[in-house]
């Protein structure tokens, strides 16, 4: 139990996908202008990453490893992820317009989130079992969501500040995420990897 908790904590905070592993930066910069959008994006991403972690584990262990097709890993992972995302989006859109409004509309954005593929590939590298793989995916996505939410909160305040013209918008946002990652360095060494 403890082991699983530590894994979750370490993937979510200490080895945060965005701030430490540098994955999923584009949506972090793109969808962080409002907390509400960030929340929707975070939840949608959590869903997809967890799904991708599970799917890629199955692909790896049931198809790629037995047939020694490691060189098809990137291709098959991304294919399955892209198709799954697109399918989920279409399905939600039709079946639950309310859910689509709050989550579904963020799904297409996820195709270009490299954290999805990144986490799936890292997962294989770590050689986790199924449960741990899923947990790893979920923890990473949780870390993504946390950073996205905090960052969106900061950017909402940033939008109200009288930032000098040269820095307003993206430059100030980058400085802010820089300071945020500086703060996250305090977590380093907390749990030996």
């Amino acid at each position: 139990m403890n082991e699983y908790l530590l894994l979750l904590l370490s993937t979510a905070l200490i080895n945060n996908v965005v701030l430490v592993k540098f994955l999923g930066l584009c949506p972090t910069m793109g969808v962080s202008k409002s907390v509400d959008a960030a929340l929707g994006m975070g939840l949608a991403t959590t869903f997809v990453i967890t799904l991708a972690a599970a799917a890629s584990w199955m692909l790896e262990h049931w198809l790629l490893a037995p047939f020694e097709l490691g060189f098809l890993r990137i291709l098959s992972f991304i294919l399955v992820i892209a198709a799954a995302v697109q399918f989920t989006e279409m399905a939600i859109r039709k079946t639950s317009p309310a859910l689509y409004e709050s989550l579904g509309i963020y799904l297409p954005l996820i195709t270009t989130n490299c954290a999805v593929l990144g986490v799936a590939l890292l997962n294989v590298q770590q050689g986790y079992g199924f449960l741990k793989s899923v947990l790893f995916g979920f923890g990473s996505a949780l870390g993504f969501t946390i950073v996205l939410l905090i960052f969106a909160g900061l950017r909402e305040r940033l939008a109200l500040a009288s930032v000098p013209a040269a820095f307003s918008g993206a430059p100030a946002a980058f400085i802010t995420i820089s300071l945020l990652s500086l703060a996250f360095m305090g977590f380093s060494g907390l749990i030996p990897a």
Partner: protein
Amino acid sequence: MSVPETQRGIAAIRERLGYQPVLLAVSALLAGAALTWAHGATKSPIAAAEASDLRATLTQVMPQGFADNDLLTDVVELDGARGPVRVHVARRAGTPVGAVFRIAERGYAGEVALLMAVDADGRVLGVRVLKHAETPGLGDKVDRAKSPWIDGFTGKSLAEPAPAQWAVKKDGGVFDAFAGATITPRAVVKAVRGGLEFFSAQRAQILGGRS
């Protein structure tokens, strides 16, 4: 845009239900073929690169020309204090003259993994850090790329210095520490000493074993 009719024709076909699986399957087929070809073309260079990579690390810890066998394949699997250890045996003209194996110890921030080579008399031939997460600028001086400190172990054995002296200077030993960072060197010293102890305990099996 010059042939609007064909365009329209394609557009009509594109919308058919059966078109999607065929299109994706064809793309996958082509992709699969291309990759299979690429895989075939790169398979042996990759294997060679990986092997030479490993071999380079293994030979780094011992003087050039110390061994004439392929360290990579000459392996005995032994029980160490922390589980199985793969020991690569170095031979000259078939005679075992030393061994190379991995050691590890908890440093300041996580494990410091090292590779060490010992000669048949139990003297250190060389030590290298394989992996560490020590603070850059402080603990990372154990890395040969940052400082030659690690060379200080070469030639040392369990007898020399005396067991009590196998420690950093601050703890009454002979080994230097870095300014502001004692934990990392302490861990490395402990690891190397552990490695020597492991070697002396398993000496017979390592040197006696035939490949």
